[in-house]
């Protein structure tokens, strides 16, 4: 990839009075937030708090009931929906590799459906290398890969159209703890190297605290807290945030205590 590390290709984001209702249920309640280019945002909160809904309104997998989302100052509804999605990387828990295409074709799908020329084999190898997979994986079928390998391919597919913005919906949630840790770390490295803007939904507070620049704690469709990991760990960010942070912090303290106690 020709990107230089210093270059921030990620856009800025603006949520303006964004709401989504399902009948009487308010999934996202009038959220207004700003994201700087190159930021890594983790969206945490209990299930049903509206994290995924908020995320999916960015690439319009869900349409808002009211309000709008702007990417680099441009309303997301001004472009054709498929054009918009092609410019945004999307990775989600169920991965969704196309089972009837080999890995190379899965990765190159973005160039196949868009107006771009077909990805040369060299670039597919580069993308595989980027997600720490050997180049000879390209000829395999998805069901021949482990879950972790499949999600690495999922990330490579999302990156193949050189997006500036990555949306990740519990991307590593279904993987075992070691694979998850590995992938999360190597993705954070990629984020920095490529200068991406990333929004990642996760239910794993520890993961959020370890890799995000900023954490939004969601509760009942609203942002209950918006703070850097250090601030959250220090406390004083409200009850919702405290209850989420308490778990990994308590675990870490108990682990340290056990280690000290022999």
């Amino acid at each position, binding site marked *: 990839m020709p990107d230089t590390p210093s270059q921030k290709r990620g856009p800025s984001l603006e949520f303006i009075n964004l709401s989504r209702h399902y009948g009487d249920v308010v999934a996202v309640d009038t959220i207004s937030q700003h994201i700087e280019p190159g930021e890594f945002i983790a969206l945490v909160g209990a299930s049903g708090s509206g994290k995924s809904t908020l995320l999916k309104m960015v690439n319009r*997998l869900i349409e808002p009931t009211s309000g709008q989302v702007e990417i680099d100052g441009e309303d997301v509804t001004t472009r054709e929906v498929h*054009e918009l999605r*092609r410019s945004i990387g999307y990775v*989600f828990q169920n991965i*969704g*590799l196309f089972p009837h295409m080999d890995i190379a074709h899965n990765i190159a799908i973005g160039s*196949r*459906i868009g107006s771009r020329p077909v990805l040369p084999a060299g670039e597919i190898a580069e993308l595989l290398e980027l997600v720490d997979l050997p180049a000879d994986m390209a000829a395999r079928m998805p069901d021949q890969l482990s879950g972790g390998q499949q999600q690495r391919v999922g990330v490579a597919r999302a990156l193949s159209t050189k997006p500036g913005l990555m949306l990740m919906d519990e991307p590593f949630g279904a993987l075992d703890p070691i694979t998850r840790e590995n992938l999360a770390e190597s993705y954070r490295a990629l984020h920095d190297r490529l200068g991406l803007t990333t929004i990642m939904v996760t239910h794993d507070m520890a993961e959020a605290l370890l890799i995000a620049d900023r954490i939004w704690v969601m509760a009942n469709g609203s942002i209950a807290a918006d703070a850097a990991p250090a601030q959250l760990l220090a406390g004083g960010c409200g009850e919702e945030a405290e209850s989420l942070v308490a778990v990994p912090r308590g675990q870490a303290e108990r682990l340290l205590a056990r280690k000290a106690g022999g």
Partner: protein
Amino acid sequence: MREWLNTIAPAFQRVPELLAQHLQLSFAALALALLIALPLAVWASRNRHVANIALGFASLVQTIPALALLALFYPLLLALTALFGDLIQPLGFLPSLLALTLYALLPILRNAVTGLNGVDPAIVEAADGVGMTKAQKLRLVEAPLAAPTIMAGIRTAAVWTIGAATLSTTVGQPSLGDLIFAGLQTQNWSLVLAGCLTSAALAIIVDMLLGTIENAIATRRKRRGWIAAALLAAGLAFALIPTTSADEDTIIIGAKRFNEQYILAQLIGQRLEQAGYDVRYREGLGSAVMFQAVTNDDVNISIDYAGTIWTNEMNRTDSVARPEMIETITSWSRETYGVNVAGPLGFENTYAFAVRPDDARHLALKTMDDLARVSPDFVFGTDLEFLERPEWQMVKDAYPLRFKGERAFEPTFMYKALSSRQADVISAFSSDGRIAANNFVVLDDPKGAVPAYDALLMVSPKYANDAKFIAAIQPLLHAISVEKMREANYMVDREDDKKSPTEAARWLAGQLENKE
């Protein structure tokens, strides 16, 4: 073995020509069904209301017996000819195509909807997420993943269609059913076997080729799939090689689905050929379709029976004397449809209530009144349509018949049912040779409840006033006695020294006795 081969080999003589027609019809119906069902399935997979309506309709069609569905298209298309004129042919290829297409819809539609709805939601979300348009999603993801299920539906539809296409014989479309129906009527089992084996083999081969394609899609072995597709295409190309088609001046001779009709059609054909006409036969037409076909010039000449026209077409339930009845029918046909009733052949083929000779003797059965007396102990065997015909009502009105049971048979089996005691009385045909051959006793009808059934030569409007044509068939009028007709019928019906309808017709031609 050799002897067996000698009997079966001639039965296969007409197979190539009929196979081609059969293949053409089945493939056309299948192609049309695909053309309708696949887009509909895509729509239905995205809209539940459409799915409910489309699948509901297709299921409903499936509950209609294929034979009835085919027959229903005749009046429907006839009504449309009033609007579109000659563009619409209410007999033959078109009604068969439409009925078979409707029949093939359900398996294709159901499997395609199931296949498309069965695509893993995660994969659909991924397709949306990478920015596919609806069309791209269908082409690149949904269709390939649903393909094995869709192909399974197409295979089912193909087998059904090839099987059901044999029934298109009844609406005048040549198919392998011609062999089966003709064979059943004349008890020529080699003919039935030839039709069944060929149609079954065709179904199996097509199913295998489609199965190969299905497998090739599932396992992504493209070459195999293409080879199978090429073989299918070759089969279609073979079917499309134009068969000798009739030109404008070919006379189309109709025959209903029983021996007498096959023989008389051949007799007429032989005469017309001698007079220099080209002829073609449309055999195995349903009784109801025949009269309509003649009025509409789809069939140019046929033999119909006075009572049939009297009750079914003119809706009369009264009985009148024979000459008056023929006169009334003649003027009614000409005035209403321009059909020329050239005249009677000389014999009558009426419904005759026949019983076994031992019963007639022991129970003293001579008339229908005697039958009414013993009817609570008797099982009544009929042909497939009699119980629904107005004549049956007329008979019941005249005689208090209360049978223990009623069973319908193919005419051939009706006679066997009587001799094997599965039925105790049958509604036999008076010109049938099997009455005399079995010594069955025909009961008198003292109240004249059953109308007369003189065999009438019917000429369609196109030739109704053609003097040369009428002159060619003139020698057949009043020339066939019921005894001769019975003998000719029996030549074809009997088990030993069985003759073909053509041979029987040739014999009958030598026996014409012009009594006029």
